[in-house]
């Protein structure tokens, strides 16, 4: 369980807030989608959770413990992170990329290789074919899968995914979304998933939190939000594609 209490972040000593007074809870085994337009503070919120940036105000708890009481390095190692823009290491093979976290946790080479193969299988990449390739030898979609596999390597209970499929074409994205759904049924992780794509949010999210200019507009299931938008912003956001959304929600059930 991840709990944010009155969380705020400012980069300029309080003149402007990138994230402002956000409180929300991500339940165990739940996928919460942070939905918002560019610059709304989604990435920042994720980074606050694993202490890639430090809080300006408020508290964050993980399983009831204040994150400030953790060492940031071990905190990050216990939370899987899929980066906006992937960020695979160009000098490491795919297997080495996937096992990067295991390496810094001092697993043996054999263990690392084993795990990497399993994880590649898990994200539907054939290890025999891909394990020894380098990132530039993979397509964008394949790289994204590797990014997901890498985040899962240390078998973390929590997973932060920052627009992992942002730069992909619709079909590949559909595939990968299906993949994530399948994975999550298998693994039951607690996931915070960032996107600016409403349909992706509806498809993947058990619940959706809508952010606008650093402020939490509404949090709830897609059905609730569509039915009772809390603010004008939320209403406008869904207005354009209301029918499609309703259909999608129907389907996902």
């Amino acid at each position, binding site marked *: 369980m991840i709990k944010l209490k009155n969380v705020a972040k400012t980069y300029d000593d309080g003149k402007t807030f990138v994230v402002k007074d956000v409180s929300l809870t991500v339940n165990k085994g739940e996928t919460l989608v942070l939905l918002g337009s560019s610059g709304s503070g989604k990435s920042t919120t994720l980074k606050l959770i694993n202490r890639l940036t430090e809080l300006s105000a408020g508290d964050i708890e993980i399983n009831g413990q204040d994150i400030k009481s953790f060492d940031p390095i071990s905190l990050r190692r216990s939370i899987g*992170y899929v*980066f906006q823009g*992937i*960020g695979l290491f160009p000098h*490491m093979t795919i297997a080495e990329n996937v096992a990067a*976290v295991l390496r810094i946790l001092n697993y043996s080479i054999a263990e690392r290789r084993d795990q990497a193969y399993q994880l590649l299988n898990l994200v539907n990449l054939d290890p025999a074919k891909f394990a020894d390739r380098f990132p530039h030898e993979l397509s964008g979609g394949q790289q994204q899968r590797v990014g997901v596999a890498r985040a899962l390597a240390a078998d973390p209970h929590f997973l932060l995914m920052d627009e992992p499929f942002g730069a992909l074409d619709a079909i590949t994205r559909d595939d990968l979304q299906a993949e994530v759904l399948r994975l999550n049924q298998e693994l039951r992780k607690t996931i915070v998933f960032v996107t600016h794509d409403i349909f992706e949010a509806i498809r993947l999210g058990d619940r959706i939190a809508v952010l606008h200019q650093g402020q939490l507009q509404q949090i709830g299931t897609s059905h609730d939000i569509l039915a009772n938008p809390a603010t004008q912003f939320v209403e406008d956001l869904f207005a354009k594609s209301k029918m499609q959304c309703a259909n999608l929600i129907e389907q996902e059930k």
Partner: protein
Amino acid sequence: MSDMSLIHYVAAHSVELLEKTYQQCYLVGFSMLFAIVIGVPFGIGIAYFKRIRGPVLWFANILQTIPSLALLTFLLPVFGIGAKPAITALALYALLPIIRSTYTGIQSVPEASLNAARGLGFTRWQRMWLVELPLALPIIISGVRIATAISVGIATLAAFIGAGGLGDFINQGLALNNMRLVMLGAIPAAIMALVLDFMLGYIEKKLSMRRVAKPTRRRNIIMIMTCVLLIAFAGFAYSHWFTKHKTRIVVATKQFTEQFIIGQMISQLLAAKTNFDVVEKPNLGTTAIITQAMKRGEVDIYPEYTGTAYLLVLHKKKILTPKATYDFVKKAYAQRYGIQWLKPLGFDNTQALAVRQAFANAYQLKTISNLLPIESQLVIGAPPGFIGRPDGYIGLKRVYHLHFGAVREMYPSIIYKAIVHKKVNVAMVYTTDGRITADHLLVLKDNKHLFPPYDAAILVRKATLKAHPQIAKILAPLAGLITNKIMQTMNYDVDIKKQSPAYVAKEFLKQHHLI
């Protein structure tokens, strides 16, 4: 000798060539190792800490602008002569390209990779070792490549301070005006630079293709590098061990023919009559370098001239008689430096004016003063600097009131051609030059003692003499034995007939039943 084919020439020198090449590799290898060990952390340092960037780069830049001979001389008081100061100097020169490339390499690491490493929970060290350095490696290697090329070139200069290497051939070749010997050093040095450049270029390419990261290949490279290092260390340890249990006597000389010949006499005599490990350092660049090395006990024996010691080392000005000069330097060296002057060898290599024998006969010339009546028709050929030197034209005007019709400054080797072909009728020469007799020149007597005396004698460290008193006895027969005439002939045999100094020295010693 001169009609020997190139292959024979190389074959005849193959053992030496291998040894010098090994020394060169040793110099370059270790200096690069040190440069990398020091330069890479500094490169990383300035990438992380902006504040030290300016000073570090400034310092490395300054180091590079110091002329190599000057740097080697600066290092002398600290490191002495030999491989140590040479490796230090080479490493210092290599620093700038390595620091720069490391810095550039680390700067060029993509932000995405760094963020990913942070997000995955890499510590700062892990980020550096696993992400930044590997990604920067191709660029770092490109810096190492540049540094290595510089280093191979400068390493040939290291011969000046007795570090050995291919520069020994080059320097001796230049001193003896023997182009083959120069080539024997220069060509392998060039080949070495090309081979190293190719190898590093190959590694750089492989790395930037990100192919080397595969565990198996990486292991191969590490194995090869370990082997190379082990061989180097084994060679080093072996040569150390091999020479440790014998008494080492170092015989040094400066870089010109006559010194090489005398040096050979000394070492051949010692080798024949003792079981010392006689080490020859025939290339020590300047008087200052040898004197320093002698004071530090790194050189035991070398031939010197009274005038050089008197004027250059002791900074005296007043010209004394040859005897008084010898007595003065002998006493001063014994007191100040703990160096013993043995008895003079018999020749003096001083400056002098020479004319063609026929010309002398025609005008009844014997002394410099004799030139005065015909001074207006005289054209003198002299080395560069003659006009401005107190013991050059200025002195001739002051002491002899001699004014030439014309002065032509030219390089020493050309002076002889000029006088033989009557382009000049007076030549500034050195009294032991082999070409004086060969070209039928007459040395005019310095009847007013303008030129300082340069009597040659062998210098030995007092400590060495004390430990091995037999050295003085063994070298004693040489005293007074070598006249100017004999020295001229021997110089001629080496300079013009292209015999080797070792051969000429051996023949001399045999002829006088010394070996």
